[in-house]
């Protein structure tokens, strides 16, 4: 143990991942009443964690994977360990989580200023940071699962942060329950793995030799069960309706959890055991299909939404679907790269929307536009940058990652996938720029603001508005915008970095063919630009109808708006199966069987007593008689 402590890598890992836990404990126990102090503690912890993550990235970027582990418990033949596994994927994720958490917490200082539950907020942010960091460097599947659940818990707390609001607490509950449903599959997969493999270590799982021992059908089933966990956590079809509802939480929470990191945990898990998955082509096909359906479905839902946060939420689901598509088609690098860039620009989009919401106290994009949203220059510019990245326009990061995905899809023998991907790109560009244009060019012009003090707050040094609140919100946004612009150009170093971890595991994967790349590049860019042009036509230009091409078909509009009736389906099946079926059965069991049994015993006792009461005749002579008969019988027995 001593030599471990002297090892700076180990020290940095432990420090970085457990400091947020101590910050949470300190805030919850000690500094609950002092929001300022709580925020400082949390910020200190997360900045240290981010620094440790960057240090680890720099130190280990050319080294082989490092693993620390210690025995946690044994049960029969099973040895479960606890430890950290640092290879390129986990280092990358650690950096993403650390840096974005740090930026979001800085942003929260401004956003959550004056909120009475501020300390609680920072405590749960620290909880999330701790859980997510441990999740990404977990060395075995059980540890990953434990922290996976903790991440879900943090999400529940943060979504239901405004718990006095009914819809918020319901949304928190819904998120947690839907995650749990997916996790049932995950747990079953773990059990399968335990039975047939006997070991839950991730490096060993990924090692090709191990999977050669398992029958193909079993690998497919386990892989699909793990994918259930991905469906729950990363909001794939059909468990996707919790994510739009999760927008009830504060905007920084949406930026951190439900765009960049937590929902990416599912995709991360997929890529973590990617070699294991890729042994079974059937599982990969199914994940590809699910990802495509998710992507298209949620893109349609985003087209008809007027709530800024809801649009980005659907967009997140859609992009997650795209990542899953990429991984399902065998593009390990494409999926992970898109995860990275998406984290950057989606957080950016959410944070900018947060600034608008903070200013205008409304989520509706039409009202924001009408009240002069475009006058806030920094958020507007950054949001446009983010939207351009999302639509895949050169030279932003989204362009490179989307091209990588489309290239992988094009290499797949079945061309419907790449067609779906292109359609998705069109939708994405359309709805993002619909939002931008509705804010930039509101219907009827800018009507002026109802409340005075917040007008013209672009510079942020208004008398009502302390300067620091605006700048704490603006700086992270600008940092992220800068990252979005730059991240695209690190594609090749990143590819080499990630390839190392895959090569050492000696598993084949589908590489993007260079020959197709040129054509796909053109097609992808055209699709994006076509989407932007369509939205300009509908919303941007002067005198446009601002109805949108879907709006002309009210039935279709209703279908998209009602989330393809998924929520209604869930509600109805819940009511019939769970409430109507199981609950009714349990109640009947309780009433008839349990109560009935006990009451039956009582009635039996009473009935027997009533029948036998004739023995108590009150007649002395009968008593004597019986006594004598008994005595006589005894005597005769003794004599004989």
């Amino acid at each position, binding site marked *: 143990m001593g030599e471990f402590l002297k090892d700076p890598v180990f020290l940095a890992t432990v420090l970085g991942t457990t400091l947020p836990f101590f910050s949470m404990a300190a805030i919850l126990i000690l500094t609950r009443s002092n929001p300022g102090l709580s925020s400082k503690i949390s910020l200190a912890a997360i900045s240290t964690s981010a620094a440790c993550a960057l240090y680890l990235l720099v130190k280990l970027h050319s080294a082989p994977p490092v693993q620390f582990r210690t025995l946690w418990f044994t049960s029969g033949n099973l040895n479960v360990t606890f430890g950290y596994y640092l290879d390129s994927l986990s280092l990358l994720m650690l950096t993403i989580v650390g840096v974005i958490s740090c930026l979001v917490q800085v942003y929260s200082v401004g956003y959550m200023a004056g909120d009475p539950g501020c300390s609680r907020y920072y405590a749960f942010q620290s909880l999330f940071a701790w859980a997510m960091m441990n999740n990404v460097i977990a060395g075995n599947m059980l540890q990953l699962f434990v922290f996976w659940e903790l991440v879900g818990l943090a999400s529940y707390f943060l979504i239901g942060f405004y718990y006095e609001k009914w819809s918020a607490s319901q949304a928190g509950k819904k998120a947690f329950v839907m995650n749990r449903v997916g996790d049932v599959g995950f747990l079953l997969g773990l059990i399968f793995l335990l039975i047939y493999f006997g070991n839950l270590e991730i490096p060993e799982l990924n090692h090709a030799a191990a999977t050669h021992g398992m029958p193909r059908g079993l690998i497919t089933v386990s892989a699909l069960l793990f994918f259930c966990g991905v469906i729950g956590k990363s909001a794939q079809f059909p468990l996707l309706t919790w994510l739009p509802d999760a927008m009830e939480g504060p905007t920084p929470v949406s930026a951190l959890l439900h765009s960049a990191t937590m929902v990416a945990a599912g995709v991360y898990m997929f890529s973590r055991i990617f070699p294991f998955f890729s042994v079974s082509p059937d599982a990969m096909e199914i994940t590809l299909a699910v990802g495509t359906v998710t992507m298209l479905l949620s893109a349609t839902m985003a087209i008809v939404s007027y709530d800024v946060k809801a649009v980005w939420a659907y967009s997140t689901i859609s992009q997650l679907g795209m990542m899953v598509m990429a991984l399902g088609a065998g593009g390990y690098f494409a999926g992970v790269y898109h995860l990275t860039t998406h984290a950057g620009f989606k957080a950016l989009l959410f944070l900018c929307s947060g600034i608008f919401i903070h200013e205008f106290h409304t989520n509706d994009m039409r009202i924001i536009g009408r009240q002069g949203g475009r006058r806030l220059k920094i958020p507007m510019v950054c949001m446009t940058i983010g939207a351009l990245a999302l639509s895949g326009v050169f030279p932003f990061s989204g362009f490179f990652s989307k091209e990588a995905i489309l290239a992988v899809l094009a290499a797949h023998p079945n061309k419907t996938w790449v067609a779906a991907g292109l359609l998705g790109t069109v939708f994405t560009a359309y709805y993002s720029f619909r939002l931008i244009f509705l804010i930039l060019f509101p219907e009827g012009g800018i009507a002026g603001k109802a409340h005075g003090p917040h007008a013209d707050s672009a510079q942020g040094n208004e008398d009502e508005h302390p300067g620091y609140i605006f700048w704490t919100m603006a700086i992270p946004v600008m940092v992220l915008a800068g990252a979005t612009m730059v991240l695209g150009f690190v594609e090749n170093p990143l590819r080499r970095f990630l390839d190392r971890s895959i090569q050492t595991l000696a598993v084949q994967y589908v590489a993007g063919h260079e020959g197709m790349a040129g054509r796909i590049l053109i097609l992808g860019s055209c699709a994006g630009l076509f989407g932007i042009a369509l939205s300009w036509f509908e919303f941007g230009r002067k005198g446009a109808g601002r109805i949108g091409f879907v709006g002309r078909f009210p039935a279709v509009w209703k279908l998209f708006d009602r989330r393809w009736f998924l929520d209604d389906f869930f509600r109805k099946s819940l009511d019939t199966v769970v409430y109507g079926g199981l609950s009714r059965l349990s109640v009947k069991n309780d009433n008839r069987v349990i109560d009935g049994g006990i009451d039956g015993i009582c009635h039996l006792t009473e009935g027997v007593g009533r029948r036998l009461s004739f023995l108590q005749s009150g007649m002395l002579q009968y008593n004597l*008689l019986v006594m004598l008969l008994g005595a006589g019988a005894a005597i005769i027995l003794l*004599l004989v």
Partner: protein
Amino acid sequence: MQTLDFLTQTAFCAVIGLTVLGAMIAVFPHNILYNVLGLALALSGIAGLYLFLGSFFIALMQLLIYVGAICIAIVFGIMLSRPLHQEVPKRAVPKVALGATACTMFFVAAVTVALKTDWRPSPGRGEDLSLWSVQRIGELLLTRYELVYEVISLVLLVAIIGAVVTAGFSRRLP
């Protein structure tokens, strides 16, 4: 001697017969006065049996206490409770049958025990005739069995007081 023996045997059988007859009269008829008279007869018969068992004193005591006092008291009780006017409802057959069964069982059991056991006289038994005298009884009562003697006096006292009180209470009630 033979005639004396024969007479003794006859007297013995007569006494036994009287006793059993008296007991039957005490139990079976419905008329309560018949029962009392039967009881008196039976008790007298038993006094006779005590004579045959060699205890003159106890025979006399039996006549004095039982026939002289108890039977008279019972007659007084009959007088005060006037059961003669009441009609007697029919007896339940199962009750009678079960009662008869119980008694027969008991009788059989007792007789079996009596006949089957090997009764051996205790070793300390001597042929000292002075032990049979009333004087001996008196001595023992006042020396060895003094406590029992006093206690039974107390019992009798308490019984009489209790009888008076019980009979008196119910008189006060309306």
